[in-house]
């Protein structure tokens, strides 16, 4: 049926060879005979299946275990507005996480988008600076978060005298997510067809107007997917924040107050080992939050490819 349809709708009466797929359907008996003659193939076949099942089982067990063990401990105590060492409330940490995320986005998103605009729209072909910036971004992407944490402590906390603070933490993670936002924006800008730009120039718009009114709006979904992915990284970050934002489990008074985000809160709970139940519940909240954010990012990203 399918094949007939394809041919009928093809008006030029030519069969598109690329669309025809060979289907070597083997019966079970044929397969069995083949594997009997080639035992190594059978072993490899089984190994591949075992590995795939192991991967799947790991994912299901890991996420399932945390959910099953943690959900019973999610109660009103965990969500009380004030943190005490008894209830281990995660609400202040949650608020801190949101503030930290917003602040780091305010710093990193304009920087990332602007530098991508420079690389894609302004830099001339063969510009040496472009490759240097790319290498720098790649280097930043490979640096582990504990090194960012050390740097943030030495630079923002000490050299700039900000102390353990919301501000120092958000600047540290902002540098961490900068390359991610830069690269996704760059890809999004590159995927905007040149005809858009030419059309805009043809109508008499300047370069800047073209970039802001034509190119950027068409690249928004791609940029958004990158930004959401960056949010996921900030929410899940621990090592870069312990020695930059500190671990005070209270609402911040201002940008200079020390705060703990949800992930740091989670680390402290599991490290102390005193509040295992609350740690389970916090793990559920953190896990669900980050997975939701990542899922949102992939939904947005898929929207672009469909277009």
């Amino acid at each position, binding site marked *: 049926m399918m094949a007939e349809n394809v041919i009928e709708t093809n008006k030029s009466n030519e069969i598109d060879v690329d669309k025809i797929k060979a289907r070597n359907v083997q019966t079970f008996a044929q397969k069995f005979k083949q594997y009997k003659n*080639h035992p190594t193939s059978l072993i490899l076949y089984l190994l591949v299946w075992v590995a*795939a099942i192991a991967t799947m089982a790991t994912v299901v067990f890991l996420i399932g275990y945390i959910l099953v063990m943690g959900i019973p401990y999610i109660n009103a105590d965990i969500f009380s507005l004030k943190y005490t060492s008894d209830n281990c409330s995660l609400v202040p940490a949650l608020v801190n996480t949101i503030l930290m995320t917003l602040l780091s986005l305010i710093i990193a998103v304009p920087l990332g988008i602007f530098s991508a605009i*420079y690389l894609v729209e302004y830099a001339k072909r063969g510009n040496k600076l472009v490759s240097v910036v790319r290498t720098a971004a790649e280097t930043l992407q490979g640096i*582990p978060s504990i*090194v960012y944490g050390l740097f943030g402590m030495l630079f923002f906390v000490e050299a700039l005298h900000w102390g353990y603070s919301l501000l120092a933490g958000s600047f540290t993670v902002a540098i961490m997510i*900068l390359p991610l936002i830069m690269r996704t924006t760059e890809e999004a800008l590159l995927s905007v067809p040149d005809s858009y730009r030419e059309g805009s120039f043809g109508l008499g718009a300047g370069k800047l107007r073209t970039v802001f009114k034509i190119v950027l709006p068409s690249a928004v979904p791609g940029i958004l997917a990158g930004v959401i992915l960056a949010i996921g990284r900030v929410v899940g970050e621990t090592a870069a924040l312990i*020695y930059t934002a500190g671990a005070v489990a209270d609402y911040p008074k201002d940008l200079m107050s020390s705060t703990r985000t949800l992930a740091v809160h989670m680390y402290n709970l599991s490290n102390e080992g005193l509040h295992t139940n609350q740690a389970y519940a916090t793990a559920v909240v*953190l896990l669900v939050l*980050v997975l939701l954010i*990542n899922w949102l990012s992939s939904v947005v990203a898929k929207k672009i490819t469909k277009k």
Partner: protein
Amino acid sequence: MVKYKEQIMKVVFFIAALVSIAAVALICIFLFANGVPAMAKIGIFNFIGGSTWAPSNEPAEYGIFPMILGSIYVTAGALVVGVPIGLLTAVYLAKFCPKHIYKVLKPAVELLAGIPSVVYGFFGLVVLVPFIRDNIGGNGTGSILTASILLGIMILPTIITVSESAIRAVPDSYYEGSLGLGATHERTVFRVILPAAKSGILAGIVLGIGRAIGETMAVILVAGNQAIIPNSVLSGVRTLTTNIVMEMGYASGLHREALIATGVVLFVLILLINALLSVVKRRSE
């Protein structure tokens, strides 16, 4: 007026582009400026080659050789666990998987990539550590084995994703040619496709090494963290990353500088791995 604005914004974009270069430069300067003097004071060989880490002793000893070994051991262990499973899963996804299973397995791998490392660590702490203690042995506060298994799981998504796209990038004609010569599907995949995808797979493995060596929060919860040279896979181990987090909170003076110097060693290791990665990537292109 418009011209004026164009010029200003061009400069703004240019400066934004310079920020990532400035960030790399600042990170290098601050780490090296704060870490290298300590290395000089302790003596570079005593620091990197010394096998005793005892900051509270009189005189204090700052040898990070146990931590370097620890990082290498858990990374190697992670590769032993993660590479075979990851590579075979990638092969499955690219060459064996029916469509309806692909729709489930691929998002599952992506889920694994999104889990925060502290949640991995917590899982290791409440599941892996007790399991190994009860069934295999050890002192029950974590070991090379638990850290290796957990890191192996953590690098799975990296290895799977990169290897899968490397395998898919091999032209179909290779596959068809091999089948036409009478090889089975499995033989074709393992003897023709995989060798052709070698450098891409290697890039994935190097990326995994980078992730395993830099991982901190998951390892600290499952590795036991004893600053001694481990004598079996069941002994506790401390890595370069965890050494920093464990002691930075209360360290001062030379001790603190030695911790920053530990970060410098880690940073240099990562830079080397990055360089290796770009060489491998260039070869695969």
